[in-house]
């Protein structure tokens, strides 16, 4: 009994590492010599380990119970217990899936919205040819017939069906206008600001750029004096102040604005977007900059959008001109400097109005 107690004390000391080096050595020898001692040691170790584990778990449980006591389990329970409503249950159980679905839908909507806005200008392209008001036009015609002492007899009495604007590009009677103004015409008459009408024929059309060149073929037509403006070959920049003269009614109307974009409808690079008030009848009118250079031809506007008119770049007029034999064009102004340069707007318009014609189309 006594020995047993001592043996166990030694075993415990050995396991805890409390023996001195010699004692430990002596004990290990004893273990090797006596298997029963060794067995006791192993059994004791296993037992003590599980006793220690037991102690650890017990103290851990105590600590957790203490932590548990600090929580308001009842409040949590009411918050987290299964909800009677199936919708809330569904929401709780599928929170993340729903979140993913929702963000996907949102993303899709945003991208669709963005694409639509990026690629499509609102509104459609509306060409500014004027369908002339029958009655009003015929009345005007009558008044002019009575009042004017100038020659108008050559023009048909029947009122024109469509109207537009054109401007002289040579002094011997070549005019530039839009193709859509004279398209499908049986006959074309042009009328200057004094009310004199001349018969004209379509000399050249350029469907690609919506341009047409007319030639006045009337025997009463006397050549104009040298053109006060010239066609600008290079492009103008955004913000350039421009104005146009046109015939949205039976008298010339001045419109003023600025180049608002270097490209036209839906990014069309052959045209400018111009912020200028234009109306049916303005089509074919010259677009001039402050120095009196023709920079484009008014062709259309965007309906539903305010202040977005389009003008074909003057470069393409020059291209169209090159299609005409140069001898038939007659004498062309070669002045480097535009004669209008430096003049006030009032003087410029005064000089230009003789070169801008109303185009009347019959079919």
């Amino acid at each position, binding site marked *: 009994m006594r020995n*047993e*107690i001592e043996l*166990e*004390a030694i075993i415990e000391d050995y396991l805890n590492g409390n023996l001195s080096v010699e004692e430990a050595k002596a004990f290990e020898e004893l273990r090797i010599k006596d298997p029963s001692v060794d067995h006791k040691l192993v*059994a004791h170790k296993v*037992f*003590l380990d*599980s*006793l*220690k*584990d*037991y*102690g650890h*778990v*017990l*103290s*851990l*449980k105590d*600590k*957790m119970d*203490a*932590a*548990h006591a*600090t*929580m308001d*389990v009842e409040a*949590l*329970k009411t*918050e*987290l*217990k*299964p909800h009677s409503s199936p919708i809330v249950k569904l929401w*709780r*159980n599928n929170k993340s899936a729903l979140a993913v679905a929702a963000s996907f839908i949102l993303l899709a909507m945003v991208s669709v919205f963005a694409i639509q806005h990026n690629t499509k200008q609102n509104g459609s392209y509306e060409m500014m040819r004027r369908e002339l008001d029958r009655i009003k036009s015929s009345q005007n015609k009558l008044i002019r017939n009575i009042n004017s002492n100038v020659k108008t007899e050559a023009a048909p009495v029947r009122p024109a069906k469509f109207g537009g604007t054109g401007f002289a590009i040579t002094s011997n009677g070549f005019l530039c206008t839009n193709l859509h103004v004279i398209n499908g015409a049986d006959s074309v008459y042009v009328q200057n600001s004094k009310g004199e009408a001349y018969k004209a024929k379509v000399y050249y059309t350029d469907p690609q750029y919506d341009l047409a060149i007319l030639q006045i073929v009337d025997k009463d037509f006397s050549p104009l004096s040298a053109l006060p403006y010239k066609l600008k070959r290079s492009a103008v920049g955004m913000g350039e102040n421009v104005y146009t003269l046109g015939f949205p009614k039976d008298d010339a109307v001045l419109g003023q604005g600025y180049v608002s974009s270097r490209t036209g409808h839906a990014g069309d690079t052959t045209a400018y977007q111009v912020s200028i008030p234009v109306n049916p009848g303005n089509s074919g009118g010259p677009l001039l900059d402050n120095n009196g250079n023709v920079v484009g031809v008014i062709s259309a506007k965007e309906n539903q959008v305010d202040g977005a008119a389009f003008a074909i770049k003057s470069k393409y007029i020059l291209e169209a001109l090159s299609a005409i034999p140069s001898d038939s064009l007659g004498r062309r102004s070669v002045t480097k400097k535009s004669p209008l340069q430096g003049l006030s707007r009032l003087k410029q318009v005064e000089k230009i109005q003789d070169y801008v014609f109303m185009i009347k189309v019959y079919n």
Partner: protein
Amino acid sequence: MSKKLSSSVPTDREVVLGILNNSDDALNKLYTGYFPMILQFILNNNGDEDDAKDVYQESIIILYNKIKSGDFELSSKLKTYIYSLCRRIWLKKLSKESKKAVNVTDFEDIEAVETDLEKHEEKDRQFEKMQEALLHLGEPCKTIIQDFYIHNLSMQEISEKFGYTNTDNAKTQKYKCLQRLKKLFFQS
């Protein structure tokens, strides 16, 4: 739930370091941090708050032992690990009670924890055996053994506490108690 978790949950690193350093504070934070998650899980799967407490404490013990044993590698979030443990434990309990296969409603991601759980079950059996043995041991043996081996009191202190005239008597008493306890432990 998400509100509560984000406000009071310690970082995984804090927990692991805290447990390694025996910090009671870290244990408290860990315990209170994830309990609502488990409570929600158990309440929504045919359990009550006492079930939640039992299951949760068991999972914390597993986590604690795993960290203490030193082979703990954080392969996922601690939250996922705890949730997976609790889910597995609760599934076992449910299937023990009713013979048919059970399905649970999940609230979090899960990961495989079977090996950890098996290790724990072995330890748990030892724990229950020891508890049983100590229960049968009776007083004053139980207290002497606990004081000496668990609370690490010296023989001197024990003999004073129990009124033994000298430490030798106390040692003899302790030896007898231990022998009986061993017998009970290894027999059962």
